[in-house]
């Protein structure tokens, strides 16, 4: 459509706005048909080719406005930042801190008294640690839902698997002392989430990589110590340091994903019809 260079440019801009919709190609075909018909009508009425194209585009509306109209007039299955996805971003940021805090509390619990972990301060610290880890798991699950919603469900089956692993991690985190269990779940879930993010190709790539690498590192460190030096308790300082390092990387990834979700402008805060 070289003779319709102005229309082509507009369609490219609109494509950028609707690229995440499953029916993006059909939307563009329909809009192209409309615009070319409008150009033909304006040309018959005496406008030259360029003026006719410009008139057609003016009448059609700004591509950003049109793209948002498509987003806001749909429900479910549509990729768009919403107020929910923004809140899930906050959940992810909170989750990133809580994983580290939960680990710190459980380690502190071990330090407080290893021989009588079910009484007094050790028990209180352990309970705080366990519930902090569980809260982190819940917020992670909410965050994954938010990312998936932002993607219009594009995380697909891999994303759903990551969500359910997060739920499993939350449940197992109640047994905070069983690091091998919840950390394994966390590590596997992190890698699955990273794969889902990589496939969907919408979130910042570095964030997904940090989540996957950090989670795998934390989980892997625990298992390496467990397998190579079984006499060393998983709650020892050396193991905890490695796990903490992995979780720190994981948390940075989660937090950056959360910030990304939080800072996007929600389309359901604007009303394209009202602003028309």
């Amino acid at each position: 459509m070289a003779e319709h260079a102005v229309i082509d440019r507009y369609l490219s801009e609109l494509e950028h706005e609707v690229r995440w919709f499953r029916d993006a190609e059909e939307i563009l075909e329909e809009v192209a048909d409309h615009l070319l018909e409008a150009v033909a009508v304006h040309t018959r009425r005496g406008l030259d080719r360029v003026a006719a194209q410009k008139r057609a585009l003016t009448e059609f509306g700004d591509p950003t406005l049109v793209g948002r109209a498509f987003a806001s007039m749909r429900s479910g299955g549509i990729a768009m930042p919403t107020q929910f996805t923004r809140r899930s971003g906050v959940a992810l940021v909170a989750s990133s801190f809580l994983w580290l805090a939960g680990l710190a509390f459980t380690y502190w619990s071990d330090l407080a008294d290893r021989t009588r972990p079910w009484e007094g301060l050790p028990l209180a610290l352990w309970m705080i640690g366990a519930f902090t880890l569980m809260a982190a798991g819940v917020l992670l699950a909410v965050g994954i839902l938010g990312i998936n919603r932002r993607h219009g469900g594009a995380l697909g089956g891999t994303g759903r698997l990551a969500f359910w692993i997060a739920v499993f991690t939350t449940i197992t985190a109640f047994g905070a002392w069983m690091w091998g269990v919840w950390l394994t779940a966390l590590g596997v879930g992190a890698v699955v989430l990273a794969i889902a993010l990589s496939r969907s190709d919408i979130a910042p790539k570095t964030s997904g990589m940090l989540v996957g690498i950090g989670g795998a590192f934390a989980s892997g460190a625990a298992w390496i110590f467990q397998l190579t030096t079984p006499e060393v308790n998983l709650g020892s300082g050396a193991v905890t340091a490695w796990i903490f390092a992995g979780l720190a990387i994981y948390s940075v990834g989660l937090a950056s994903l959360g910030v990304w979700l939080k800072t996007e402008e929600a389309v359901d805060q604007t009303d394209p019809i009202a602003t028309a």
Partner: protein
Amino acid sequence: MRGQALKGHLDLLLLAIVADGPKHGYAVIEELRLRSEDAFDLPEGTVYPALHRLEKAGYLSSSWSEVQGRRRRTYTLTKRGSSALGEQRQSWNEFSQAVGRVLKGVPWPNTP
């Protein structure tokens, strides 16, 4: 007329236009323009999402054909859409008549 004033009534207008026979998007918008005598100042591009939503809700169906070497989507009113249009028409008539009576300033009935 501002787009805001049209909000909430666009579905009814679109269904009414498609009720007269299958139409593609451009024809729907042209008909909207003609019948309203250019009263609605609405970006044309925002009509398409509304058509898509009506289709998703089952009030319209669409089919693709090839016209002048390009693909064209044509909308048709479904049975459900026809039923919804009837209901909305009746609601609108009742509403507009009530508003009309108020605006006419019907005098307060004299007490006997």
